[in-house]
């Protein structure tokens, strides 16, 4: 009798230990991510940028295209302490050469950047996951096709390919739609889905002959169910990391294109457009260029910190 009780107690104790330890892989990853200070700072910055983007019409003191002809090229208010005579409390961060309020334009710009960060990346993810899973699991013609496409796309540097697509489609209806936003989506999607598909394919190949997949097949799961329920969750970690870096990548692409003058059409404000427009007067009045440059840098760094944090959290063995 006494021994039975101890055995049961032991069992309860074991269960307690198990109960306390019960944290999923994702829970662990989140825990590690939130303990990473740089990633946390990144998340806060992204959250602030997202709020500013959403509430830009409420927060911005002026409309992004509103011109105040007489108040061109005002300097940010702090330059007053360094002897600038061209400041005005009405324009906290100054104004550009057409007298548009820089603060308002910066706020509206964050909208385009976030859209560019998330929309094309979602398209890339959808296409890349589908093609990569099918190519890896089913193989055959689709797999051959994917590998050949990859060879060609890898021969172009990403940005070069996007530039060619955007530049040649610029004059068409597609190129004009939404101030040039749509063609940038297309360019980024066309170039980047291949990388995701290739990654997913490799992951699927490494997972598909593992025992748990075989077990699922043995109990009669069909290919669709195996791909969705068994393979997909197991290949997700590297995909998430790739996507986390694809978002700032897409934003960077937009800003480079706009800076070169083939991205978003002025006067629609984006940080790249603002730099492009302000560059003519850069050596005499640098603020219309410096401030958007600063915004791009901060947001890109924030996304990179989060990406690094996610990689460390999801794959603690990686030392990159």
């Amino acid at each position, binding site marked *: 009798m006494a021994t039975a009780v101890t055995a049961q107690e032991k069992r309860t104790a074991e269960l307690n230990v198990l109960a306390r330890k019960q944290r999923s892989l994702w829970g662990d990853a989140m825990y590690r991510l939130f303990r990473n200070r740089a990633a946390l700072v990144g998340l806060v910055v992204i959250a602030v940028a997202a709020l500013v983007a959403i509430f830009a019409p409420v927060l911005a003191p002026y409309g992004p295209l509103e011109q105040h002809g007489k108040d061109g090229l005002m300097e940010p208010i702090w330059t007053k302490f360094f002897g600038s005579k061209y400041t005005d409390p009405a324009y906290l961060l100054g104004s550009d050469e057409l007298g548009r309020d820089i603060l308002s334009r910066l706020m509206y710009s964050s909208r385009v950047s976030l859209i560019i960060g998330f929309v094309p990346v979602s398209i890339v993810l959808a296409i890349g996951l589908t093609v990569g899973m099918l190519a890896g699991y089913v193989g055959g013609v689709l797999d051959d096709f994917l590998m050949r496409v990859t060879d060609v796309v890898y*021969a172009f540097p*990403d940005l070069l390919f996007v530039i060619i697509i955007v530049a040649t489609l610029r004059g068409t209806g597609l190129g004009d739609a939404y101030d040039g936003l749509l063609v940038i989506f297309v360019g980024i999607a066309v170039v980047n889905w291949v990388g995701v598909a290739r990654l997913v394919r490799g992951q699927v190949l490494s997972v598909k002959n593992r025992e748990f997949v075989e077990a699922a097949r043995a109990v009669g799961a069909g290919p669709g169910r195996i791909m969705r329920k068994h393979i997909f969750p197991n290949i997700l970690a590297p995909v998430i990391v790739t996507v986390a870096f694809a978002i*700032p990548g897409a934003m960077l692409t937009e800003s480079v294109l706009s800076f070169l003058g083939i991205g978003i059409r002025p006067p629609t404000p984006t940080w790249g457009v603002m730099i492009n427009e302000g560059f003519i007067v*850069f050596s005499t009045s640098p603020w219309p260029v410096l401030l958007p440059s600063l915004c791009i840098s901060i947001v890109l760094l924030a996304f990179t910190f989060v990406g690094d944090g996610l990689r460390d959290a999801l794959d603690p063995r990686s030392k*990159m």
Partner: protein
Amino acid sequence: MLRYVIRRLLLIIPTMFFVALITFSLAHLAPGNPFDKNPNRPMPQETIDRISRFYGVDQPIPVQFITYLGNILHGDLGISFTRRTPVVDVIGQGIGTTFQLGIGALAFALAFSIPLGIVSALKQNTMIDYLSMLVATIGTTIPGFVLAIFLIYIFGVNLHLLPFVGWGSWQHMVMPMFVLGLGAGGFLTRITRASMLEAIRQDYVRTARSKGLQERAVIVGHALKNALIPIATIIGPATAGLITGSFIIESLFNVPGMGRLYVISILARDYPIIMGTTLLYAFLIMIANLTVDIVYGVLDPRIKVA
């Protein structure tokens, strides 16, 4: 090995064919051409015909493509729409400058990133490590043109230390090379650190230590030698990065190289130049990737080439 190299070299041909096909199709998909630029002063029809015949654009598109491919084979990339000179000559004028810039940037990148990567691996999780990783992250994350803007502001506009337009003297080269090199170097620092961290935990390093070698000999002779192998893989991405970087940096600093030429041609819709340069870039990148794979196979016999 030889068979592998030959197969890879042969694979360049179909890939180049598709690259040519894609750029050619895109270029012909695009509406308009540089001759109909001025709607107020329309050209007489016979002039348009004459020009079209001169550039061969009166032929059906598939015929144009085949002619184009045939011409490439004997080194003729067509004639620039805007400059009226052969594309090969136009590229030839800029390529030297771009190589100069690229090699300078690469040299700078290697010079700072390998020592930085090694030091931060040896002092893992110290202040030095965090600082050099921060430098590396900034180098890879902040876009080159933004970095260039900050530098121009500080050293060009405010301090008047360096010129920021043109090319020629060493002063002109400092900022473009620095900016271009920092991106590649940041990436390289991370790779060096990661592979050094891997190497110093290997058995042969422990063996070297336990037989009483000095720390210096262990690090340089044993760990570093092996850690440098993965660094060879950066040649491919570095080439691509330097090429795309050169578009922006050359445009920004007004460097008369291929990158700036490319951007100008895109804005002017000068398709012969766009296509010629694209093909050249694709070719360079494929050669770089091939070199990586071969060098990797030679340095590390454990890598099996398939």
